[in-house]
């Protein structure tokens, strides 16, 4: 087997050194009844070519997003990732290293994490950020639990246009960790005013910007209402590119930002692995979940980096840790860092502008199709359409024409009649004029 260097001669010599008759003897502590005496019933070893052939066959059964005119978003966005990003994250020193617990031999990972934390803080307008979470949805749940710790209260109010996966993940945690979630009804028109709901038991209010249905809103007044009541404002961002153009949560008074960073540097990958961003105010840092890279000096006085404030974490605090997270999304965070380094302020802003412009153009085009109404006054690169008939079959029909037309809201709310005709559509820099024309034309025909 190509990954196993021991030869039979090696094995024999090693067994002799150990003083064991056979490898079997080394497993003597396993109860005899539980020892398998032959391989399990699965295929035998294969060469590279055979494995590649088998998996490529499965890959070929999928409709590749990039081969279609693709307009799907709803928390996962198809952006162009510069070639340098994937090259650099595949350097073995990044790819095949462990968590940087030994700082002297991990300065590369640690410095990159410090840069990642800084980038996340800059784009969200927050003071500090951690070294990543699993994804945006788990970031959201962790943000709510952190707000519970900070305020010593146990109720979270979730806006109706928070991503349903984020809401459901948070609700799951609420059931087991024992806190209350007031999840508002889906709010495609973004009319719900949460300020009157904030009371003395409220730990946090969770909103999303742009919202799940695309609306862009200013939450400054809500932040003030939260702070008056001693609650925190948690702002979710599922499309990180929006931060290149839209007023950042930090400037609206957010206390915690929980975001999905996939858009920067990371492919769709059918939904994972992605990378959760988590940023907050400096004064709350000891209640933060997850790893943190911090700056220090070595014995020669040279600047360097270490993992720090580890007493918050499970490997030290055990059952009193702020979170049980250990492995996070390190390499996805690195991809984010590299892509963001390539973009810089000018590139990030321009990327966001292009996304917005494409969405405006697409919205105008689609709204002109008979039987289609645009829901949004405001949006960044995603908006909701009301179709004259259920959206799911329309999407299915358009897929047959090479258009991935968006995400029907019924995918998330299959039992709600009022969601049935709703289609959530995103445009990015990857969409061409031809893509948009194909979408508009296809929609016109399907809705006829």
């Amino acid at each position, binding site marked *: 087997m190509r990954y196993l260097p021991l030869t039979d001669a090696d*094995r024999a*010599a090693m067994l002799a050194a*150990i003083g064991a008759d056979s490898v079997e003897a080394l*497993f003597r*502590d*396993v109860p005899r009844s*539980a020892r*398998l005496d032959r*391989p399990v019933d699965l*295929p035998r*070893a*294969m060469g590279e070519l055979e494995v590649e052939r088998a*998996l490529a066959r*499965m*890959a070929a*059964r999928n409709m590749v997003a990039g081969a279609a005119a693709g307009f799907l978003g709803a*928390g996962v966005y198809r952006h162009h990732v510069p070639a*340098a990003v994937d090259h*650099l994250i595949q350097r*073995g020193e990044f*790819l095949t290293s462990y968590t940087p617990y*030994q*700082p002297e031999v*991990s*300065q590369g990972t640690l*410095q*990159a994490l*410090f840069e990642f934390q*800084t980038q996340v803080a800059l784009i969200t307008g927050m*003071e*500090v*950020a951690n070294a*990543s979470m*699993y*994804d945006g*949805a788990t970031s959201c749940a962790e943000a709510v639990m952190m707000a519970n710790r900070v305020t010593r209260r146990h109720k979270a109010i979730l806006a109706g246009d928070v*991503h349903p996966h*984020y809401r459901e993940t948070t*609700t799951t945690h609420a059931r087991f960790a*024992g806190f209350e979630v007031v999840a508002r009804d889906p709010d495609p028109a973004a009319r719900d005013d949460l300020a009157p709901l904030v009371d003395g038991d409220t730990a946090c209010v969770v909103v999303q910007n742009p919202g799940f249905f695309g609306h862009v809103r200013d939450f400054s007044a809500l932040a003030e209402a939260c702070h008056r009541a001693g609650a925190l404002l948690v702002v979710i961002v599922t499309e990180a590119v929006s931060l290149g153009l839209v007023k950042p949560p930090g400037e609206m008074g957010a206390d915690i930002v929980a975001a999905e960073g996939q858009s920067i540097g990371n492919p769709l*990958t*059918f939904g*994972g*692995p992605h990378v959760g961003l988590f940023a907050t105010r400096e004064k709350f840092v000891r209640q933060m979940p997850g790893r943190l890279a911090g*700056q*220090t*000096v070595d014995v020669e006085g040279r600047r360097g980096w270490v993992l*720090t404030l580890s007493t918050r974490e499970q490997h030290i605090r055990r059952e009193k*840790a702020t979170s*049980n997270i250990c492995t*996070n*999304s390190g390499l996805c965070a690195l991809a984010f860092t590299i892509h963001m380094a390539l*973009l810089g*302020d000018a*590139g990030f802003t*321009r*990327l966001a502008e292009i996304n917005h412009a*494409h969405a405006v153009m697409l919205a105008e085009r689609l709204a002109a199709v008979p039987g289609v109404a645009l829901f*949004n006054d*405001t949006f960044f690169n995603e908006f909701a359409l009301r179709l004259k008939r259920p959206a799911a079959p329309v999407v299915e029909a358009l897929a047959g024409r090479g258009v991935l037309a968006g995400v029907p809201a019924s995918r998330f709310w299959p039992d709600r009649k009022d969601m049935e005709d709703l289609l959530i559509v995103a445009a990015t820099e990857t969409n061409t004029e031809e893509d948009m024309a194909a979408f508009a034309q296809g929609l016109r025909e399907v809705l006829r």
Partner: protein
Amino acid sequence: MSEWSQAIGAFGRQAAAAETISGNRGLMIEEPLLFERDQPGRCGVDLPAPPPVADRLGGLRRGGPTGLPGLSEPQVVRHFTRLSQKNYAIDTGLYPLGSCTMKHNPRLNEKLARLPGFADLHPLQPISTVQGALELIDTLAHWLKVLTGMPAVALSPAAGAHGELCGMMCIRAALDARGEKRTRVLVPESAHGTNPATAAACGFTVDAIPANARGRVDLAALKAKLGPDVAAIMLTNPNTCGLFEDEILSIAEAVHEAGAYFYCDGANFNAIVGRVRPADLGIDGMHINLHKTFSTPHGGGGPGAGPVVLAQSLAAFAPLPWLVHDQNGFRLVEQAQGAAAQTLGRLKGNHGQMGMFVRALAYMMSHGSDGLRQVSSDAVLNANYLLAELGDHLTPSFPGPCMHEVLFDDRFLEGTGVATLDFAKALIDEGYHPMTMYFPLVVHGALLMEPTETEPKEGLDRFIAVVKGLAQRAKAGDAAAFRAAPRFTPRRRLDETAAARKPVLRWRPGEAGREAAE
């Protein structure tokens, strides 16, 4: 000869004191932060001017610049290449971190995960357009079920700790469904920190169970702690002392008799894959770290994947989504309805760590059922070889045979003035990543070594010679040299106290690095 080494010594001291003009030391090149390379007007991407449109931002445009630095592509490539060169990695050498399973990461897996048919798929595409992706997930699920003998697997957890959370939530949900309020979870003292943290996150209280003199769970102590309020035991097997819990069948029986569940931390599955099925040990739920046993790369701390295999008694509570196969092909159950009515709900966005699934399946198929059995055999053989060769020079905490990792404690350093930490740092200067230190907590000054099956014998022999040599040096009384280690790394020992007292967690404009750390 001696003059030469003296000259090296003198030069070494000089170099340690600093001073090249550049601050670089040959291939060790100093690299500032990205933010310190900022040059307005530079950009690493070429994007066209956006088409002119009337914006729809409702007046909520960002007010000022983000503060992100501007760099060209060559600068970015050089920056991250230089950073990478400051890391140790499996690709550069033996990485004997106990309980972390730092094995070779095959590049075929990377190639296949990047096939557009997997990497360029949106999770919310119509189900009819992703049948191949679902087939891959289903195939992976089949392999995991057969290898563990368990009837069900939850695939969405994103890492080992997330898998634990999933497993323990399933147990809470099952107890709720039984109408039982059990609040206590038994966790051995030697457990990973994630175990108690997870139990607490699920609303349980944690009760530690002691180890016996043989490094295993003390069965009598366990039985004494079992009662009607015990929800589960969380046990790592093989345990973090590198030992198989030889009374595991009695443990399972006692736990089940008490009406509790048996959760297994599968971090050490690499020791038994293909040779022992957890189902045959009486386990009700176990996560599998795909980034350990099935070689998906650790990536400097993630991403991982932590599928959880479940017994029939827990399967109904598995998190969403569920993958099912019917006459129309594969589909996803994404709502708590029908057969999934009892699901604990959703644990993360989308459907799981697809990129890791592709890599893990490629790894499994490459090995096959026969090769996976060889994996655990060689992993255990390599660890026992370390035990045999080092046993007289270090102090093994427990007699062998061990499983895939071997535990030593610091008795061999007694009176030398060298601590476990110093010993490990000296290993860095010899070109090795240290073993796991000070874990598990059940022995003093632990050194836990896991060579994995992907190390050749001659590599182990070199490592053994180095460790023996260091042990001799320590005993010969060279404590100061150990405390000064490492000397040949991009940075020497770092001041973690200063980092924690005045945390500097990000760069800020105008802050020179050194002052900021003062």
